[in-house]
C-alpha cells in the first residue's frame, strides 16, 4: 500500500512538472497564448449561440428544455476542456510516433501510458472548462432543483463526469494508437473528435433505435454529457450509473491493453 502511495505521489509530481513546463512554454509567446484563449472563447460562444438559435424556434429538444440542454452543453465543454487541458500530448500522439519523438517519453522510468496521457496539457483550453462550468452553474441555478436534491445528485454527477472523461480518453487512446501501424494517422482523430462532438446534444435526439444503441454501446457518446446531466437534473438512476461505470471500466482496460500491444510495434523513426 505504501509502495502504491509513493508511486502515485511520483506520478503526481511528474504531472505537475509537465504542467508547469507547458505553462512556461505557453507564456513564452504570450500573444499567441492570448489569441488561442480568444479562439477557445469564440468556439464555446458558437456552441452556446447554436443552442440559443435552436431554442428560438422550439420549446424543448427531445424532451429537454433550454436550461436542461445547457446543462448538457456545459458538461460537454467541461469534459472537452479538461481533456485538452491535461492530456494534450495524447492528441498529438500520431505526430510523435511518426517523427520518433515518442522516444523521449518511453525511455523515462515511469509508466509510458501515464506519460503519454499526462505529460503535457494545454493551459489555453482551461478556458473551455471555465466557460463550461459557468454555463453549467448558470443553468443549474435557473433550474432550481433544490438544495436537498443538489446534495444527493452532485456526487453521482461527479462520478458520471469522471466516467465521461475515462470513456473519451480511452476511445482517443485506442484511435490514436493506430498510428503505431499506420505511418500517417494524423486525421484519424477527426473520427473520434466528431463522434464526441455529438455528445453536446441530448442523446434522445437519436430517435432511430439502432443509432441509439450505437451511441450507448459501441461509441458511448450518450454517457459523455447526457447521462451526467440526467443524473444532475432528475437524480440518481442506478441503472445508468452502473452502465456508465461498467462502460468506463471496460473502455479503460481495453485501451490500456490496446496501447501496450500497439507500443510493441513502435519503430522509433529517425533514432
Amino acid at each position, binding site marked *: 500500500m505504501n509502495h502504491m502511495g509513493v508511486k502515485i505521489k511520483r506520478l503526481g509530481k511528474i504531472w505537475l512538472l509537465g504542467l508547469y513546463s507547458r505553462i512556461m512554454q505557453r507564456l513564452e509567446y504570450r500573444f499567441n497564448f492570448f489569441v488561442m484563449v480568444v479562439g477557445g472563447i469564440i468556439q464555446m460562444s458558437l456552441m452556446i449561440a*447554436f443552442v440559443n438559435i435552436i431554442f428560438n424556434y422550439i420549446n424543448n429538444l427531445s424532451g429537454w428544455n433550454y436550461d436542461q440542454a445547457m446543462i448538457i452543453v456545459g458538461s460537454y465543454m467541461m469534459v472537452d476542456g479538461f481533456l485538452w487541458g491535461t492530456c494534450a500530448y495524447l492528441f498529438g500522439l500520431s505526430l510523435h510516433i511518426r517523427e520518433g519523438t515518442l522516444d523521449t517519453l518511453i525511455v523515462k522510468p515511469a509508466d509510458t501510458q501515464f506519460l503519454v496521457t499526462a505529460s503535457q496539457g494545454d493551459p489555453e483550453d482551461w478556458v473551455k472548462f471555465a466557460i463550461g462550468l459557468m454555463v453549467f452553474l448558470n443553468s443549474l441555478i435557473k433550474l432550481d432543483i433544490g438544495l436537498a436534491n443538489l446534495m444527493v445528485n452532485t456526487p453521482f454527477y461527479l462520478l458520471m463526469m469522471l466516467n465521461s472523461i475515462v470513456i473519451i480518453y480511452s476511445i482517443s487512446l485506442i484511435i490514436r494508437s493506430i498510428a503505431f501501424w499506420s505511418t500517417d494517422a494524423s486525421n484519424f482523430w477527426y473520427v473520434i473528435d466528431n463522434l464526441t462532438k455529438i455528445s453536446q446534444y441530448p442523446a434522445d435526439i437519436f430517435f432511430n433505435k439502432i443509432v441509439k444503441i450505437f451511441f450507448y454501446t459501441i461509441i458511448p457518446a450518450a454517457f459523455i454529457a447526457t447521462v451526467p446531466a440526467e443524473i444532475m437534473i432528475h437524480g440518481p438512476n442506478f441503472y445508468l450509473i452502473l452502465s456508465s461505470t461498467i462502460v468506463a471500466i471496460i473502455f479503460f482496460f481495453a485501451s490500456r491493453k490496446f496501447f501496450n500491444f500497439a507500443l510493441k510495434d513502435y519503430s522509433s523513426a529517425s533514432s
Partner: protein
Amino acid sequence: MRKYWKIITNEFQKNLTYRANIISYNFGNLFEIISQITIWTVIFQGTNMIKGYTYPEMMTYIIIGWVILFATSNYGFEERIAKDIHQGTMSNMIVKPISYIRYIIAVSMGRVVVALVSVVTIEIAMLYLLHDKIILNFNPATLLLMLAMLIAAFFIKLLFSILIGLIAFWFIEISGTYFSLNIFSKFMSGAYFPMNLLPITFVNISLFFPFIYTFFIPLQLYLKKITFMEGLRGLGVEILWLFLLYLLIKLVWHFGLKKYEAAGV
C-alpha cells in the same frame, strides 16, 4: 508550367499513399453531418419554417454545404509555411528557379484531388439515401456559376492560409492566430449554421469579409434564394478578394523575406 504540374502529380501520388488518413478525415466529418441532420430533423418536427428555410432547404444546406466545405479546404498550409520559415527548409525553395508561393498552390491542388474524390463518393451515397429530403438543382447555368465560385473559394482560402503562414517571418509561434482565424472564417462563411439565422448585423458585417462568398452565397444560389445576377456579383467580389489577397501576399513576402534568417544553413 510543367514543373508545377509535376509538383501537383507528386503531391497527388503522395496523398494516395496515405489514403486511409484522408478517408478517415472525411469519414470523421460525416458524423458531424449526421448530428446536424438529426438535430435539424428534430427541430423541424415542431415547425415548418425557420427564418425562411424549409426542412428540405435546411437539409440541402447541410449536405451540399459539406461538399463545398471540403472541396474548398486546403488542410492547414499555415503550419507548413511557418515550419518552412522557422526550420529554414524554405531555403531549398528559394534557391530553386520556382516560386515558393506557386509551389504551395501546386501542392494544395495536388492534395485536394484525393480528398475531393472521397468527398464526392460519400456525397453520392448521401444524395442517393436522402434524395427525397433535399432539393436537387440541375440548372446548368447555376451549377457552372457555382463551380466557378467554388474554384475561387478554394483559392481565397488557400491565399488566406498562405498569408497567415507568412506571418511566421515576424512571429515564432502562430498556432493561436490560425486556430482562431479558422474558427472566425468558418463562422463568417456560414459553415456552422446559416448566417441569416443570426441578427442581420452579422450578415451585414460578414459581407465585408471574403468568407461568406466561399460558402453561404454559393449555397444561396443553389437554393435559388438569390438570383443568378446576385451570384455573378458574388463571383465578382471573390475575384476582387483574390487579387487583393495575392497583392497582400506579394507585399508580405517582399518584406518578410528580408527578415528570413534561413535557419540551419
